[in-house]
């Protein structure tokens, strides 16, 4: 049966999440909430310098303190291969990862870890940090991509050469990537209007409310158990095993409840240190970061400089587009510039384009994934420039997107053909939404008003998942997956199982298992859990249904042929029915427990998701402050399993995008010290900074997925900064190619004449 014709009973409803009661009563246990008898508390010593050679580290006074049981530095980590390999989500250089955990030779950013201490109390561990003496030779820091590529710029890594460029010299440019097709010169020659700008966007942090944490216990036989807050327990296992050079079988990772991640909890910071100190001390070691450490030393996402030139003909068709994306990698290679290059023209059908992306190291923390990594920066450039083209051609801004919208069969800029996507449907929905035609307030004294729209696409990730679905003898079921649940995904997975087995969502008890209990499962990231782990659950349910038909045949003492399983019953060709509960109750006499299992690589079932954001702003022309009056987010979910949590992803992503657009930024001093390492000065939006955000779910089923699901976690963060900038332009006539659109910047732009 095609998914579009199927009627669902559970999918599309809004049951209370299974872990809800624990989370509203304070009983849910997050990483910092775990404790073990005899546990030590670990703390980390961090560099105050952005770039310095480590001349010496003397830990002897700390080691000598009573109550201090372990002190480690970079020398206490084994040497590991210095090459990029498949590790973690995507690829990782283990040597870089190790150097980021504890610096060797040089410190490369303010907050770079140098040493760690485990002691009988947190207070004592901090006192011990004070007793560690480090001597530095301070080096000039390289704080942004412009400085990093300048002639004669100080080098972060003396041996780093540019991948993708033959015979390159040592450089701060770690990699160059390129997508191109058609003929740019010919394209621009055919343009009626050409616009070109250079965009600058600030480094921003995921801003999850729960700081990183880890609790490690090493037994006398070397077996390790690790509790931590992570988006991917298997990735944490492989990363820890790699940097500590231990076999995977020795390490069990138990994912605690996780207090937000948004991509930032896909790698390791404390985990290997806690394990190493537990190995040394023979006692469990618990580590929790402070907010200051989270901001200074965990992976934010890249600031960037993007040069973009686009031309369109008189009908608004984009005839040529040329982009250069320079992304801050932080201290080690690995910015999401590739994904920026994918996203920048993703919503458009283009024939002539070139996209060059450069991954550039700077003396800032090693970047990590952040919700649609790289995409928001890129769409800020393309979606504001396209808006400018529309303005110059006097075409409605949604209409110009409609005329260029990608659709099934279009060759994507990064290569393959597009399957069915819902971008055209989304644009239609936005154009006909009452918000788009609502009256804006007239100017009022210093206050002026404007409306903006922007779109954006995100490819989502497929990757691997496992699921085990066990039928209980009363006809209920238990579901085990390996996907840490950040936003209600265990309920959406349980709903898929319930739908397939004809149960209520509450009759399926879902749990998120440790790495010993379930098969390999990739990260909760790339918007993939409901799509990919959901696919594994769907397949496991088919496995259960096959077994139930077999068991029903045994109970009926008839051949299995012709028996179907529908709406929770096995049905014989003669119409006779046996309920799931009836079959389950007899499982002991028909072959033992009924357990379905499935493992998938969901790459083939993945489908991109497109989003759009429509926003009304108020600009105070005397102060430069931009307020958000109304926001509507549109997104193609393929199929919304639990619409309330789909809306939640869309609203949450939108508000993160608003923060990125209006106020969030890493502010460094000239010496490279992070000046706003607190939630007071790193300004994520409060409840008072945003309006209610209406979420409009578009459902264009993903043709590659049996339930039509598309990942919904990320795409919604891509459009808001561009939409806000477009709205500010509509209100003030000024185009600001810079993020965030902070009051001083807007104010300064309003003072200039052009």
């Amino acid at each position: 049966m095609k998914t579009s014709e199927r009627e669902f009973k559970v999918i599309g409803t809004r049951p209370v999440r299974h872990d809800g009661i624990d989370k509203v009563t304070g009983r849910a246990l997050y990483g910092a909430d775990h404790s073990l008898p005899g546990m030590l508390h670990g703390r980390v010593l961090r560099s105050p310098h952005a770039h310095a050679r480590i001349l010496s580290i003397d830990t002897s006074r700390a080691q000598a303190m009573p109550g201090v049981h372990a002190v480690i530095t970079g020398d206490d980590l084994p040497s590991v291969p210095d090459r990029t390999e498949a590790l973690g989500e995507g690829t990782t250089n283990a040597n870089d990862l190790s150097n980021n955990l504890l610096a060797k030779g040089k410190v490369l950013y303010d907050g770079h870890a140098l040493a760690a201490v485990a002691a009988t109390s947190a207070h004592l561990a901090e006192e011990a940090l004070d007793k560690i003496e480090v001597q530095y030779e301070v080096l000039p820091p390289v704080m942004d991509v412009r400085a990093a590529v300048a002639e004669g710029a100080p080098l972060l890594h003396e041996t780093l050469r540019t991948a993708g460029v033959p015979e390159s010299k040592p450089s701060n440019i770690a990699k160059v990537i390129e997508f191109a097709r058609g003929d740019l010169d010919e394209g621009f020659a055919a343009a009626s209007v050409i616009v070109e700008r250079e965009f600058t966007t600030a480094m921003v942090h995921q801003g999850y409310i729960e700081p990183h944490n880890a609790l490690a216990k090493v037994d006398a036989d070397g077996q390790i158990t690790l509790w931590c807050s992570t988006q991917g327990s298997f990735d944490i296992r492989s990363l820890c095993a790699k940097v500590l050079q231990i076999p995977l079988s020795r390490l069990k990772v138990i994912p605690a409840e996780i207090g937000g991640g948004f991509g930032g909890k896909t790698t390791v910071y404390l985990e290997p240190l806690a394990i190493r100190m537990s190995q040394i001390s023979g006692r469990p070691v618990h580590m929790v970061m402070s907010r200051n450490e989270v901001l200074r030393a965990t992976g934010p996402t890249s600031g960037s400089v993007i040069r973009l030139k686009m031309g369109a003909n008189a009908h608004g068709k984009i005839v040529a587009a040329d982009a250069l994306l320079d992304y801050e990698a932080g201290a080690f290679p690995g910015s999401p510039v590739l994904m920026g290059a994918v996203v920048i023209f993703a919503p458009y059908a283009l024939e002539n384009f070139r996209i060059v992306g450069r991954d550039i190291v700077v003396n800032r923390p090693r970047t990590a994934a952040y919700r649609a990594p790289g995409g928001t920066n890129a769409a800020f450039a393309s979606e504001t420039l396209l808006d400018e083209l529309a303005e110059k051609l006097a075409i409605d801004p949604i209409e110009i997107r409609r005329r260029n919208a990608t659709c099934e069969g279009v060759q994507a800029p990064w290569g393959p053909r597009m399957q069915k996507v819902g971008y055209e449907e989304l644009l239609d929905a936005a154009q006909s939404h009452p918000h788009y035609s609502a009256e804006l307030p007239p100017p009022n004294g210093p206050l002026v008003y404007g409306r903006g729209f922007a779109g954006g696409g995100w490819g989502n990730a497929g990757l691997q998942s496992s699921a085990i679905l066990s039928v209980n003898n009363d006809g209920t079921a238990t579901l085990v997956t390996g996907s840490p649940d950040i936003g209600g995904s265990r309920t959406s997975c349980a709903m898929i199982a319930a739908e397939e087995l004809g149960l209520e969502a509450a009759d399926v008890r879902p749990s998120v298992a440790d790495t010993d209990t379930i098969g390999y499962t990739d990260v909760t990231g790339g918007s993939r859990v409901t799509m990919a782990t959901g696919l594994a659950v769907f397949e496991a349910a088919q496995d259960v249904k096959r077994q139930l038909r077999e068991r029903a045949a045994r109970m009926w003492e008839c051949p299995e042929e012709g028996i179907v399983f529908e709406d929770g019953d096995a049905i014989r060709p003669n119409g006779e029915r046996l309920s799931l509960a009836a079959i389950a109750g007899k499982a002991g006499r028909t072959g033992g427990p009924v357990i379905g299992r499935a493992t998938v690589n969901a790459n083939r079932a993945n489908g991109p998701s497109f989003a759009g954001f429509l926003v009304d702003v108020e600009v105070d022309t005397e102060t430069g402050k931009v307020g958000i009056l109304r926001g509507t987010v549109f997104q193609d979910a393929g199929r919304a399993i639990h619409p309330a949590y789909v809306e939640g992803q869309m609203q949450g992503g939108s508000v993160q995008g608003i923060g990125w657009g209006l106020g969030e930024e890493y502010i460094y001093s000239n010496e490279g010290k992070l000046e706003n390492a607190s939630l007071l000065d790193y300004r994520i939006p409060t409840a008072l900074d945003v309006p209610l955000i209406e979420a409009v779910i578009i459902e264009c089923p993903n043709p590659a997925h049996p339930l039509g699901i598309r990942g919904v976690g990320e795409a919604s963060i891509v459009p808001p900064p561009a939409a806000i900038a477009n709205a500010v332009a509509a209100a003030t006539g000024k185009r600001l190619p810079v993020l965030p659109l902070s009051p001083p910047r807007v104010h300064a732009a309003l003072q200039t004449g052009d």
Partner: protein
Amino acid sequence: MATLFLTAPMRRHAGGTERLEVVGPTVREALEQAEKRYPGITADLFEGNDLRAGFTIAINDTIVDHPLASLLEPTSEIYIVPAMGGG
């Protein structure tokens, strides 16, 4: 004949050509044919005998499960795609 779409860096080895006609039966053989015609064109794609981490293969509109072993049809379009992740 299947069609191999060349990435921008690969095109530099092939005089700017955007696509090559190749015969299978598998993706691996298709890439070997390309390498024979334009030596060095696939060098960056391989690490030893395997596709380098960070690359994968799409045929038409789908990322395939077995990149190098996938069988081609005469209408197949082969794309070399960077492995993509998310947050």
